[in-house]
């Protein structure tokens, strides 16, 4: 090294030291600022979490507070005299005679007998408005199931119509002017009299859990939509899980890494971001118009949602497979296992918790979906509870939408109650995913 270079280095060392001193001075000066910035940053984070939590609290309290009234129902206890001459005058006990008898008149007369002084036609109509139109069907069903009841006086707990249910719950009250509410003062007086006589009872709303949709809020239930969701999810699971896992295993374990598989990979990732309504249009064009599958059926709904969940399952499964250490594959191969044996005996079981978690999250997404179902006719009024995957059905989120759009006031509470049930399902499914992960997850 020449002297010239040495002096140069010395001088540069000196400037470096000077610079360092200057820098530490600058750092010291800036330190306070940096601490303040960090404190602010944390405050923003806490603020963000706080806003999110507040939103959830507001959401849940409004849903629960407006949904709770739907879990009780008001009934009226009436002793209906099932007279032979009214129901089956010829005593044939023929099924169609039993079905077509005028049960409406029977229950109406029983109620009118409570108020013998009501004689005008108009008043009589106003009085019987207390009873739900479902009351007659309930008596009809009881008689058809057990014709031996004819000739006896049977005690029924019959539903009251939704407006009086709301009156009992205090939603409709005397504070509003008479002309502006659906229950008149006279009707309120009658209802209060019935209550004094101990005929009105409020109990757990079993109708809500045992019936399908109805246009009368007091007769509407969630079972039809729940069964529809169940069948749809079964089809979705049966299709998307095996196909998704097979695709993931092939792509991860067997496929050569080349252009083609790259393109497939990019496409799968893109597919996960496609708006769900597009899958609905595809379902309409392919499954219904081309293959001629029935509209409104959980089969088609499940197939459409399976298409939608496939990318989620494939991506999650591939991640889970990737997380299995190569040493396990190599050890198995070293002991003479075939590649298929390596996958089925070792890699898949180890990756299964991750795959199941991905599947459940994909399914939970599908459970809350309405947009693709609009196209294939599952946004519909369906009174019969579906018994299979080709019966017309609707699903829980669609039921929420349909009730939210109904004019009757009593549907407000039922909408929130349906949301609560949907949320219960979602929370249950997500909890299951967490449990599976915690229980079977292995770390290396």
């Amino acid at each position, binding site marked *: 090294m020449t002297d010239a270079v040495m002096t140069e280095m010395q001088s540069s060392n000196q400037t470096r030291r000077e610079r360092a001193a200057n820098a530490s001075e600058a750092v010291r000066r800036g330190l306070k600022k940096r601490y303040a910035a960090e404190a602010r940053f944390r405050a923003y984070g806490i603020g963000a979490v706080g806003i999110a939590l507040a939103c959830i609290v507001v959401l849940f309290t409004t849903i629960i507070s407006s949904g709770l009234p739907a879990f009780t129902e008001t009934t009226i206890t009436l002793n209906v005299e099932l007279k032979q001459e009214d129901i089956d005058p010829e005593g044939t006990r023929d099924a169609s005679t039993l079905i077509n008898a005028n049960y409406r008149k029977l229950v109406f007369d029983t109620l009118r007998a409570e108020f013998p002084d009501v004689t005008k036609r108009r008043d009589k109509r106003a009085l019987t408005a207390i009873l739900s139109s479902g009351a007659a069907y309930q008596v009809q069903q009881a008689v058809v199931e057990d014709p031996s009841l004819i000739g006896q006086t049977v005690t029924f707990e019959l539903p009251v119509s939704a407006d009086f249910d709301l009156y009992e719950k205090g939603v409709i009250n005397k504070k509003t002017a008479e002309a502006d509410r659906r229950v008149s003062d006279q009707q309120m007086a009658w209802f209060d009299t019935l209550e004094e006589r101990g005929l009105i009872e409020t109990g757990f709303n079993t109708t809500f859990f045992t019936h399908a949709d109805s246009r009368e809020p007091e007769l509407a239930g969630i079972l039809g939509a729940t069964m529809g969701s169940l069948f749809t999810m079964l089809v979705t699971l049966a299709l998307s899980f095996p196909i998704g896992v097979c695709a993931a295993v092939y792509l991860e374990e067997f496929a050569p890494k080349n252009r083609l598989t790259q393109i497939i990979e990019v496409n799968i990732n893109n597919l996960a971001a496609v708006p769900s309504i597009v899958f609905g249009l595809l379902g309409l064009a392919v499954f219904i118009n081309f293959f001629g599958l029935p509209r409104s059926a959980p089969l088609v709904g499940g197939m459409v949602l399976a298409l939608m969940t496939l990318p989620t399952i494939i991506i999650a499964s591939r991640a889970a497979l990737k997380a299995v250490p190569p040493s396990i594959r190599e050890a198995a191969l070293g002991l003479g296992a075939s590649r298929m044996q390596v996958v089925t005996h070792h890699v898949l079981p180890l990756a299964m918790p991750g795959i199941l978690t991905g599947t459940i999250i994909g399914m939970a997404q599908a459970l809350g979906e309405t947009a693709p179902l609009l196209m294939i006719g599952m946004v519909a009024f369906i009174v019969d509870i579906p018994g299979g995957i080709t019966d*017309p059905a609707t699903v829980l989120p669609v039921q929420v939408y349909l009730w939210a759009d109904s004019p*009757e006031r009593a549907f407000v509470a039922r909408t929130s109650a349906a949301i609560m049930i949907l949320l219960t399902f979602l929370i249950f499914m997500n909890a299951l995913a967490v449990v599976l992960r915690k229980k079977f997850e292995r770390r290396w």
Partner: protein
Amino acid sequence: MYRKFLGVAVVAGIAFAGSAAEARDQIRIVGSSTVYPFATVVAEQFGKTTQFKTPVIESTGSGGGLKLFCAGVGVEHPDITNASRRIKKSEVEKCAKNGVTDVTEIKIGYDGIVMANAKSAPQMKITKQQIFLALAKNIPDGKGGLKENDNMKWSDVDPSLPNKKIEVLGPPPTSGTRDAFAELALEGGCKTFDFIKAMKKSDKKKYKAVCHGIREDGAYVEAGENDVLIIRKLEANADAFGVFGFSFLDQNADKVQGSVIGGVAPEFDSIADGSYPVSRPLFFYVKGAHVGKVPGIKEYVAAFTAEKTFGPDGTLSDKGLIPMPDAERKKFQKDGEMMANNISM
């Protein structure tokens, strides 16, 4: 094991596909979301009181329903479509092109369209012309021409109206309610200006654009198809008005009040006798080719047109449908009985 599972799924899929094209024993109905609350009541009663299955009713909107309805004849197509407006000529032609030639039109009654605000605010008294001046995109400039609507307050339209910002919540363009509101209220007000009325003959397109164009500067807020939501928003904002069907006003009379239009308040009787100016007929259309193929269609139509259903004291009037006059009801009862092909245009 996974392979077997996949195999089973594929076989099952093929089996379903094979069994799908069989005959249908359940009526399928599509169409208007305005008619939906009425049709579903009839369908439910029909399912409970007859041996037929309860019809499946989809809420697709009038236009969407007619599109599905006109797609062809056969069990994969719907039997009936509900509409909150009459079938258009183009739709009749489309139907005919796809072999749907035998169609019966049944008018079921009337639905009033109301403009309403919260009970906490005073009731509005307004004319159709004032509605037009408040909500149209272009309004007369007083010199025989048109100008962009610059009325910001109701009192700008007419000093007798309240000194409040114009804020009206209503359905989006896809809705039949919006079409009817534009046609009946806006066009009704628009026609009162002679030079615009003259335009109808000279330039029909421009006339329609002027009379049906709703302003887009924020005074008219598209609030979605959900009328319940509009009512909730009105409750929260006493200065706002909402546009929706009469049945929603009927069910929520304790929260909102209908504005008096042209001196007539939206009430059951005033809509029924035709004095309330903003009301529209509701229809359903039956595919003649399906009668006899799908069981129960005739009986469903009969149940819908029975006096106890769509008559003055019927179940539908409880739900807010305004019944037709006696003579008109008789006509459609007969058409339904005969399955008369009555849509030739």
